[in-house]
């Protein structure tokens, strides 16, 4: 007779499982004394973030990496909101993008205008706009400064479209130096190649670009100090401990323009951030030796990313099941609500995932919470829709019988309607789970971590190996989740209702 009570037990164990998973996965994030190190989503920022992270780890701090955040304002707001503890920012960016264009760009006067956050002493290099030429041409013409170009009107200057327009680009430059040239615009990505093969003579660049080293290009000295200075410095909030600040201060003066170019060039040549950072720290004597090999780092990262990915998915899915099924029952009982609710959920589904994630930032900041909310909203529709459809399609005669034999409304729901709806409901949960695992990879864009982290980093680096480091486990995870749902279905759905089951 034991089979008779199985369905109810199965439902209970599903909830117990979800709850246990949520608690288990929520636990690791509640650790103390952790520094959350962030970066923006371009190579140099990743690399500096990784250097800071490894240095702090070597000095005994626990570090959580929130790399690849989508832009200055996201990073700044996260720092102000204490959702991250530090990232490396540029003095010029603070002056322009954060403080709205102040003239004084030295760290002291910038800090005087900031509240709750501050820049530490700059690391050394200046990542600003610069004009560049082939080293060979530069030497043969005997030029070294921007003012030297006055005597070389024959040079073909071709700059990026953005540089051509920006007031701190060509228009300002030509005023300061009274250059006679008529520059053309070019797509920035093509300019280095064009410069290297001699089809153009001068272009604009960032002074620490790895390509400068790679193509053997040389910078023209900004001898009239026209370009604003973009000195890189750790950017922290005021609650970061003195110990951490002292550790970061060890970076001061360690990297000049050429040094940064070389580090960037290594990344361009295909080395991963972690090993470039670790090689640098060892070479500088800041860290004694790599704390562990690449292999165990890979596994550690993988485990951390998978756990975070599961955490994201499980919490979002758990919430979506609770609300989706509940809402489904309400909607089923009030058919006039049904179309409106399903319409709204459907509308949410049409928002591209990356946009929905971005929309969460003003509401919930960055990190785990906005990602969970976005994933939850995505998972809601399949669960809600399947719940409603499943309840509606139950045979009316069976429901009348359930009423006639004296079951109350709640008893009908729990003992008849939900069990009968279980197969379709389960299919909805399964769909939602697979969607969540996939979409969760995008959550890395808003600093939620997970398997999207290596993918986002790999995309910005065009590093296939790194992309696969995230994509393969994500695919495997999706398959495993699919399989475990099959197992779970066998426990939760009564045999006669299973696809291919008896009856």
């Amino acid at each position, binding site marked *: *007779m034991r*089979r*008779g*009570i199985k*369905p109810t037990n199965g439902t209970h164990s599903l909830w117990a499982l979800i709850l246990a998973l949520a608690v288990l996965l929520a636990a690791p994030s509640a650790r103390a004394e952790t520094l959350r190190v962030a970066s923006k989503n371009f190579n140099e920022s990743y690399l500096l973030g990784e250097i800071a992270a490894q240095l702090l780890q070597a000095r005994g701090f626990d570090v959580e990496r929130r790399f690849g955040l989508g832009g200055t304002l996201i990073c700044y707001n996260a720092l102000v909101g204490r959702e991250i503890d530090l990232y490396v920012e540029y003095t010029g960016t603070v002056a322009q993008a954060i403080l709205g264009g102040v003239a004084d760009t030295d760290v002291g006067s910038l800090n005087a205008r900031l509240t709750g956050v501050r820049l530490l002493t700059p690391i050394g290099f200046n990542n600003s706009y610069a004009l560049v030429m082939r080293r060979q041409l530069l030497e043969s013409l005997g030029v070294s400064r921007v003012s030297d170009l006055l005597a070389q009107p024959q040079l073909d200057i071709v700059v990026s479209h953005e540089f051509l327009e920006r007031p701190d680009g060509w228009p300002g430059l030509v005023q300061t130096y009274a250059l006679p040239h008529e520059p053309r615009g070019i797509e920035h990505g093509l300019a280095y190649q064009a410069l290297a093969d001699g089809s153009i003579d001068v272009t604009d660049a960032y002074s620490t670009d790895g390509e400068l080293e790679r193509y053997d290009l040389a910078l023209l000295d900004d001898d009239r100090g026209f370009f604003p200075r973009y000195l890189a410095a750790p950017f922290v909030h005021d609650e970061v401990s003195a110990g951490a600040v002292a550790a970061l201060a060890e970076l001061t003066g360690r990297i000049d323009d050429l040094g940064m170019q070389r580090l960037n060039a290594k990344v361009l040549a295909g080395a991963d951030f972690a090993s470039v950072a670790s090689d640098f720290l060892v070479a500088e004597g800041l860290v004694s030796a790599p704390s562990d090999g690449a292999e165990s780092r890979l596994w550690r990262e993988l485990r951390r990313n998978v756990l975070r990915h599961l955490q994201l998915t499980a919490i979002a899915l758990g919430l979506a099941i609770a609300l989706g099924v509940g809402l489904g029952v309400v909607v089923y009982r009030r058919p006039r609500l049904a179309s409106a609710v399903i319409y709204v959920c459907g509308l949410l589904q049409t928002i591209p995932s990356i946009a929905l994630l971005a929309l969460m930032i003003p509401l919930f900041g960055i990190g785990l919470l906005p990602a969970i909310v976005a994933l939850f909203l995505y998972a809601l529709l399949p669960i809600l829709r399947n719940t409603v459809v499943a309840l509606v399609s139950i045979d009316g*005669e*069976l429901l*009348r*019988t*359930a*009423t*006639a*034999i*004296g*079951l*109350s409304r709640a*008893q009908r729901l729990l*003992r*008849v309607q939900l*069990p*009968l709806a*279980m197969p379709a409901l389960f299919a909805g949960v399964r769909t939602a789970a697979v969607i969540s695992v996939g979409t969760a990879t995008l959550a890395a864009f808003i600093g939620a971590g997970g398997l999207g982290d290596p993918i986002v980093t790999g995309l910005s680096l065009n590093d296939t190996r790194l992309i696969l480091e995230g994509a393969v486990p994500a695919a495997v995870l999706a398959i495993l989740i699919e399989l475990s749902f099959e197992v779970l279905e066998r426990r939760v759905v*009564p*045999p*006669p*209702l299973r696809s291919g089951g*008896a*009856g």
Partner: protein
Amino acid sequence: MAASAAVEFRDVAKSYGDLAVLREINLSLPLATTTAIVGASGSGKTTLLRLINALERPDAGELFVRGRALPVDDVEAFRRGMGYAVQGAGLFPHLSAYANIVLVARALGQDEATLRERALALAVRMQLDEALLERYPGELSGGQQQRVGLCRALMLAPDLLLLDEPFSAVDPITRVELYRHFEALVDGRALSVVLVTHDMREAVRLAGHLVILNAGRVAQSGATHDVLSAPADAYVARLLEEQLQ
């Protein structure tokens, strides 16, 4: 108040929209007797049954079940006081035969040992093997399903049993077996049964009291032998003649 009838209808009428299903129903169904409600499809017999367990409400008139006027306050407890079985058994496909039988009792929180004892006793009376109770309805024959349905209807030991064509979805041989099971079930018990059927032979075989419906009105109501010997009108006479020859 001691009831003199199992169910009493006084000037009851029921319509669905413009369609009058039952009109001027005045009936007194005797206690501890099987009453068959006989009529053609659309005569209103299923609606009559659903009025008794408050699945439907009358538009006019009064209705008493065991002396209690409807509607009652606690309709679920009221319904649990009556057994209910329908054509095709109405078993829940996700529950085993056993779980179907004990569904309501279990929902009421009765202890499992008592449940089991009572369910097995009913199964024995219905000649249902204990192993069959482990099966899901889809794994049982039509006759077995109907017997499980009857066990479920009797699980809470009701004194009133409502049956809506419970024997019509099975083959003739199985049907006769089911009649025997049913007779064994009601024999010697103070059980009032209201049996809705379109089969006059079945009605005559199983019921001590007949109610014949014709287009929403009572054509005749009385003890079976009285109806057989003195049909009230031409419709009843023709029905008896056509179906019982």
